[in-house]
């Protein structure tokens, strides 16, 4: 494979080899080899040496591992550039230093030039947004832990440049993100990039933003996912119906908020020039056209949802490509390693079975999410109040029968230790 300065420029296209079992009327099954000629959405052309017309293809198997995704390739290219010395990332990026090479005293060091003066003068925790009044349409009433989280997210103090928020399911993580976005926009903050591991999580954030009546955002989505695929297409339809019913006046505008990757090269910069909030998956930040968007909306605040599912090495490309503009990184997720001092032990146990670790962690035990970086874990804020209202009976039923906590010995270490 040949590397270029932009790793994700595709140089070589190779055929995807496949193996089929074919059933022919009046004959037994036999194996045919072929390859995929082209893929469009979820449809692909099969090319084989034998005509398959009037024959039934019983099974279809791709041979060989999938090639690296764009994000994986970008990560590899970043490492390569560091090793080649063309990237002074380790010296230049305070994000790399503060996450991977903490000082002995645990104090993070940030260059003064790393945040715009206008933002440095902005909110500190003591001036953060108050609890939104119930009468203010489209706003949420935040509980105390959510309030503290939004305060910290809005803070521009150096000690809050990296903000970690930990919350079990149902504690309002997405609501916290929406509240933060609303407040930040009111304060004149721009360059907010909301990212997550999965398209569905990104969709959830978009949905929440619309739920609170905020629609001044753009969603960058892969055509592979958006095009024909049931999850996004189905959810988007639900979403649009929901909007149509609840906010008919913004229906047309929301349609324009989604930019599919196939249009990245042709979409006019005017379309997103004054948009202060961008949404996409973490992988999308490795798209070869992403700088078209970041040049108009420089990434100043990065909010990562589902951060517990993301292996920390996946951020290297982000901290490499955007370290000149990035002022604040906020990680939100639910990590099994953390102990929740305020929540019921049974909920703790149920939660243990519901969380999702970074992909591959079951096989590669030493993979870490941002929550498992020891000196950062100490910074974590906990969303907890709503969790106490979590329906125990409902949640208990979610656990497979054989896994339900009956005896103390069944319980994970962190629960036993807090008994």
């Amino acid at each position, binding site marked *: *494979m040949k590397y270029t300065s932009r790793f994700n420029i*595709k140089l070589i296209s190779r*055929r995807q080899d496949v193996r089929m079992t074919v059933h022919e009327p009046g004959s037994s099954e036999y194996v045919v080899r072929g390859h995929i000629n082209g893929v469009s959405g979820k449809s692909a*052309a099969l090319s084989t040496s034998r005509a398959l017309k009037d024959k039934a293809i019983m099974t279809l198997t*791709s041979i060989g591992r999938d090639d690296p995704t764009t994000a994986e390739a970008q990560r590899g290219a970043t490492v390569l550039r560091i090793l080649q010395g063309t990237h002074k990332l380790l010296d230049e990026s305070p994000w790399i230093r503060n996450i991977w090479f903490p000082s002995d005293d645990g104090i993070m060091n940030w260059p003064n030039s790393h945040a715009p003066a206008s933002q440095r003068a902005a909110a500190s925790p003591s001036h953060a947004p108050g609890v939104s009044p119930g009468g203010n349409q489209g706003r949420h009433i935040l509980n105390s832990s959510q309030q503290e989280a939004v305060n910290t997210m809005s803070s521009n103090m150096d000690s809050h440049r990296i903000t970690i928020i930990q919350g079990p399911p149902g504690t309002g993580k997405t609501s916290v993100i929406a509240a933060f976005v609303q407040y930040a926009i009111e304060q004149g903050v721009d360059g907010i990039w909301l990212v997550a591991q999965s398209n569905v999580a990104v969709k959830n954030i978009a949905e929440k933003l619309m739920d609170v009546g905020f629609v001044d955002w753009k969603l960058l989505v892969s055509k592979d996912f958006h095009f024909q*695929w049931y999850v996004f297409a189905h959810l988007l339809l639900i979403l649009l119906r929901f909007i149509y019913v609840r906010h008919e006046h913004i229906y047309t505008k929301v349609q324009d908020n989604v930019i599919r990757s196939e249009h990245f090269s042709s979409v006019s910069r005017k379309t997103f020039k004054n948009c202060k909030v961008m949404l996409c998956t973490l992988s999308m930040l490795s798209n070869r056209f992403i700088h078209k968007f970041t040049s108009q909306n420089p990434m100043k605040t990065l909010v990562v949802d589902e951060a517990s599912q993301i292996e920390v090495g996946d951020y290297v490309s982000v901290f490499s490509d955007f370290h000149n503009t990035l002022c604040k990184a906020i990680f939100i997720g639910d990590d099994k390693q953390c102990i929740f001092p305020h929540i019921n032990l049974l909920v703790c146990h149920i939660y243990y079975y519901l969380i999702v670790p970074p992909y591959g962690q079951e096989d*590669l035990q030493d993979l870490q999410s941002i929550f498992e970086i020891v000196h950062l874990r100490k910074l974590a804020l906990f969303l907890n109040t709503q969790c106490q209202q979590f329906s125990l009976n409902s949640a208990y039923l979610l656990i497979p029968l054989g896994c339900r906590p009956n005896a103390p010995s069944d319980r994970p270490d962190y629960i036993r230790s807090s008994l």
Partner: protein
Amino acid sequence: MIAKIANDSLRLGQLKPTQTKHQFTTSPDGLTGQVRVTSVAYKNKIRPDQV
């Protein structure tokens, strides 16, 4: 740190399955006379393998 990130990438790549069995439907391709296949599930969709 760099060694670990590089090594983790390699190990994660090795976790990918060497074969993927697809769920699909078929239809004739009127232009080429070949067969078109359409993925049914996103998780094992047919990918355009490119480097």
